[in-house]
């Protein structure tokens, strides 16, 4: 039988638009300290570490070399995953399954406020020969994807706007979130058009913060924690980076990542076997597109489900009760880490005013943002 692995410690700084008072290393140090206290361990007890970093986002060549100190990982097994935090989580999970150790740690960070040329950096993610010569913003890719998704699914701009209203309102009751606000759909629809149909309010504003998660093998987990949160399934997948050949209407990467995690967790009917989800909503329409891709609702159903309140905290399937990327902020490679953190807080009953009742299983999903087509999914249970 495969070993069972649980999350036994979480730590975070919370998420704010700017963090001028601390360095990126101090952000990680704060999250790490809290995670180790939460798990009741010290860095010396950890067998292996996985950090998450993307050189251009960090502002270093070979940024991973700067990971060990603030995690307590100097002269320990550590490497960096240049992907979504949930891909790092998968890596740390596999380290325990493969017997490298009983305790592993995952770290992720966003110091987006340090990036002065953020737009140019994301433009540099596009193909240099076929796409970059047009000198168009990556938001044009999001605008085109939104248009195609709406065309295929029948979702409306109003339904996308509802996602923004819901998530930003949820964030108001989440002390970790930095972008909570009470607005109505008209405010979203009338905000500045960035790349039609995408408006300014459909786009997650960026945030800074760090998350550290401690994983342990079953026996260790049960001695360390009263409330271990079990990793029941995990999956990840990449579609082609080619804008010319990829699927624009459906998030196939999310579908395949979810199916991989469902298979591992033995889930056949995600809507009834999962209680809630924290999924990537970096742009409003992505929440709807990801819901359909992951079979949480049928094709063409995400818009109406959102419109009728089905994804509210009080709805039949709450989505992003934390406030999501729209309410918490775009954390880049840490986005999946924030989702995992919030699912764990919910399953432990520590989500405060946004606490859901009678829940046993939650889904956390990450996407690496435009122009990527990479996603990862984790199924967690208490």
């Amino acid at each position, binding site marked *: 039988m495969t070993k069972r692995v649980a999350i036994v410690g979480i730590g975070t700084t919370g998420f704010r638009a700017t963090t001028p008072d601390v360095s990126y290393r101090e952000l990680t140090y704060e999250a790490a300290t809290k995670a180790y206290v939460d798990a009741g361990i010290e860095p010396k007890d950890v067998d292996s570490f996985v950090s998450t970093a993307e050189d251009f986002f960090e502002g270093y060549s070979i940024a991973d070399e700067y990971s060990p100190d603030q995690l307590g990982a100097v002269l320990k097994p550590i490497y960096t995953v240049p992907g979504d935090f949930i891909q790092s989580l998968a890596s740390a999970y596999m380290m325990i399954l493969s017997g490298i150790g009983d305790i592993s740690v995952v770290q992720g960070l966003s110091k987006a406020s340090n990036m002065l040329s953020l737009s140019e950096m994301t433009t540099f993610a596009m193909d240099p020969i076929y796409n970059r010569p*047009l000198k168009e913003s990556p938001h044009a890719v999001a605008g085109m994807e939104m248009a195609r998704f709406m065309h295929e699914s029948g979702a409306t701009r109003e339904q996308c706007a509802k996602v923004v209203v819901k998530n930003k309102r949820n964030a108001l009751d989440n002390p970790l979130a930095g972008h909570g606000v009470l607005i109505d759909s008209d405010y979203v629809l009338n905000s500045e058009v960035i790349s039609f149909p995408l408006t300014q309010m459909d786009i997650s504003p960026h945030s800074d913060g760090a998350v550290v998660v401690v994983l342990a093998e079953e026996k260790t987990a049960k001695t360390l924690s009263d409330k271990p949160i079990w990793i029941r399934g995990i999956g990840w997948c990449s579609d082609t980076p080619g804008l010319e050949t990829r699927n*624009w209407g459906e998030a196939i990467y999310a579908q395949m990542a979810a199916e991989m995690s469902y298979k591992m967790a033995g889930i056949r009917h995600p809507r009834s076997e999962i209680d809630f989800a924290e999924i990537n909503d970096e742009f409003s329409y992505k929440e709807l597109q990801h819901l359909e891709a992951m079979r949480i609702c049928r094709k063409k159903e995400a818009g109406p489900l959102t419109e009728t309140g089905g994804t509210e905290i009080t709805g039949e399937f709450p989505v992003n009760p934390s406030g999501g990327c729209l309410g918490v902020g775009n954390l880049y490679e840490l986005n999946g880490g924030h989702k995992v953190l919030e699912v764990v807080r919910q399953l432990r009953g520590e989500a405060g005013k946004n606490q859901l009742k009678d829940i046993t299983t939650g889904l956390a999903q990450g996407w690496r943002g435009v122009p990527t087509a990479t996603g990862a999914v984790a199924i967690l249970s208490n």
Partner: protein
Amino acid sequence: MALIERYQKTTDISYWEGQIPMSYIYTVGRAGEKFFREMMNGRIFGAKCESCDVTYVPPRTYCEKCFARLEDHYADVGGKGTVHTFTECHEAYDGTKKQKPSIVAMIRIEGTQGGIVHWLGETHFKDVYIGMSVEAVFKAKKDREGGILDIKYFRPIK
């Protein structure tokens, strides 16, 4: 600082500014070489995988589905296609507001599973729709340099 005063700007606190000067060249590869040489002649080329019945535009030397080698399977795919999706973009690549928005579209080249992301011209945003038939408009032959901008834009087929 008095009790009621707060730092309000990040730059009021110590920070250190740094730049990473980066310059690269990107070799176009063998498939790219074929694509751009033909483009200078006003033609769009793809690469066909016979076993998967898939034609890639821009062409590649390999099939992403069956991993077959496609190097000798180039084909002229014509200059016509349909608008697969489109947007009117008001933001420049550096995040500033454009003086004049552009219409950007993913154009599915007829008879292929690939396409070209490019501008739409000789039309208005409100008149564009998904499924609209369009054709490539090339720069004058003397101005072509062997790049994606040898196509000026795509325009509706009247």
